[in-house]
């Protein structure tokens, strides 16, 4: 009996391989810490509280949107439409208030509801229509851009209540409000994916959809949920960014897609599905945030920034990938 308990302890310990296994598993964290340390030592103003808050705020909405995409990637799909969804939701939110004269609360509610519809449309095409997600969401991407431009003619829409800016620019106990949002969303996603049945099902579906189905998981439902979460979090990001810029803009999310993908993949999520981690995604965002910030603090020439950023990224990923056990 006692020996059996001992074996149970041994066989149920997460990192039974010791520190080494832990470090390998979380190499991205250690690489981040290393980069952070280097920056702290070599760059003058890097470690100032204000600057760290800068970084955290800059990546807040990026993280939130990336966490949405994470779910879609986790089940082996892709949502290319998030960038234009962010734009559309932004002009909708501002437009409903400024042009249609709705209360901001109603507008927020409508935008959130529409995000669910949007996610369902993507889901329907991909999960039920069996259209490869790349094509399906590329199409919705274009259609959403079209609608956003039709609605706004490409003009920024102002007229949002000024308190909204607090959401994007405000501070609470010297920490930017967006950072709280990010922490909240991250914590929710973490608990959801690690400690709930539904959340764990995403991994099962992504790893092997057939096996998941035969184990009683409603694979289609999970697929729909993934697209809805993605759309919803993109919209949350859009609301935040709109609050930050205080205007609705159809091009608000234009650069987002690639950044989001970088963050998600950098965080160790497999584009083939089934593998990845919420904390990794947020770490990925921090990594990107620190690199961008450091680059400007050092004053690297803009053209070189592309190159230097690339070289740092590839170094990080090379080390990370090759430290993992096969």
């Amino acid at each position, binding site marked *: 009996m006692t020996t059996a308990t001992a074996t149970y302890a041994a066989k149920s310990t997460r990192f039974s391989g010791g520190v080494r296994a832990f470090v390998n598993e979380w190499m991205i964290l250690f690489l981040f810490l290393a980069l952070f340390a280097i920056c702290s030592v070599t760059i003058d103003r890097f470690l100032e509280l204000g600057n760290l808050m800068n970084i955290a705020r800059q990546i807040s909405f990026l993280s939130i949107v990336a966490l949405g995409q994470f779910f879609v990637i986790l089940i082996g799909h892709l949502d290319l439409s998030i960038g234009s969804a962010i734009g559309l939701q932004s002009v909708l939110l501002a437009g409903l208030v400024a042009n249609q004269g709705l209360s901001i609360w109603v507008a927020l509610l409508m935008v959130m509801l529409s995000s669910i519809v949007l996610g369902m449309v993507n889901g329907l095409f991909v999960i039920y229509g069996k259209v490869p997600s790349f094509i399906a969401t590329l199409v919705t991407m274009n259609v959403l851009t079209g609608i956003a431009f039709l609605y706004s003619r490409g003009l920024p829409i*102002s007229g949002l209540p000024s308190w909204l800016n607090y959401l994007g620019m405000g501070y609470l106990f010297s920490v930017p409000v967006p950072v709280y949002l990010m922490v909240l969303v991250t914590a929710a996603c973490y608990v959801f994916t690690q400690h709930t049945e539904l959340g764990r099902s995403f991994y099962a579906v992504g790893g092997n959809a057939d096996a998941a189905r035969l184990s009683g998981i409603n694979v289609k439902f999970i697929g729909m949920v993934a697209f809805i979460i993605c759309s919803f979090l993109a919209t949350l990001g859009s609301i935040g960014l709109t609050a930050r810029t205080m205007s609705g803009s159809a091009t608000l999310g234009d650069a987002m897609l690639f950044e989001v993908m970088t963050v998600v993949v950098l965080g160790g999520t497999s584009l083939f599905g089934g593998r990845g981690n919420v904390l990794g995604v947020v770490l990925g965002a921090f990594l990107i945030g620190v690199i961008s910030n450091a680059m400007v603090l050092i004053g690297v020439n803009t053209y070189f920034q592309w190159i230097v950023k690339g070289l740092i990224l590839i170094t990080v990923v090379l080390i990370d990938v090759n430290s993992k056990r096969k």
Partner: protein
Amino acid sequence: GNATSDPTATEPANGTTTSTTEAAGSDGHVFGEDETLIGGSIFTLQYAWFLGAQEGMEKWAEENPEAKVRFQFEDSQQDIQTNISNLENLVAAGAKGIVVFPTDSRAIIPTMVDLHKRNGTQFVVGDYPQQPDDPADAVWNTFVGHDMVALGETAGQVAVDYFESAGKKDPTIVYISVPTSGEVSIDRFEGFSKVVLEAFPDAKIIEEGDTGGGDRNSAQSLMENVLQREPVIDLVAGHNDAEVIGAYNAAVGANRAAEIKFVGIAGDKEVLQYIQDGNESWIGEVLQDPVVLGYTAMDALWKSMAEGEEMPEQYDLPKPEAITPANVADYDWQNWSWLG
């Protein structure tokens, strides 16, 4: 945007570097004595035109070495969020003043307000007029820029002059816009059509939006298709030279370049070369000098920031110029390094 309750603003982390709510200078920094970091937030480096603005700022520094300014330029890549992050990071890097070429007429305002209030950062807005909801949010010292509508109007005038001399009463015009460029594209188009329609109410202006890459290649493909559809086209204008040259190349390919006239906008060497070479298809190029813009913006920033000079709400720059076959010889365009 409105006030925030950020303690870091009033209690700098370590008194020496982070600035206070008051204007720059109160943190011990002395303009002219200490090196002053000036940020340049450039709309995009994809368009060579903005290099001119950068060049203008650098020119100012060369002429005013006593100011001891050091520049740091950051590319917004036409993206609002990049623009915002760049501004914040520039301030974190210690920039006292920033010349901003915003990505649209609003999105950057709250960030400028925030940085101005918390760090005392001084701004001059270049190129893109800002329209704050609340006049109190106009925290920038002045706006130095061109009027996008005027740019379109000048192009329209070139077209009008041509139609008048050619005696065309109901010309057909194709105008290639870039819808993703939003306001800029709309302003230019509106300026153009206003002038043309005033002079020729019967003119038919067909707006074609380039939904592709917004480059020569996509414009060329678009125009190839338009040429197929439109049996008669008298003139082509567009959002910028990439679009118009693309259209021109398509017309050459379809053997219709001789019957169509082209008006360039915003500056490309190739167009000026065509005009200088006497290429009959090209009747003009409408230009604004970005070097003057950059120089003036920097000048205004320094004067307001370091010398405490009051600035007007807006700095007027020379009107856009139309370079035509008639006056091309007057310009030293071959030496404009920013010309694409």
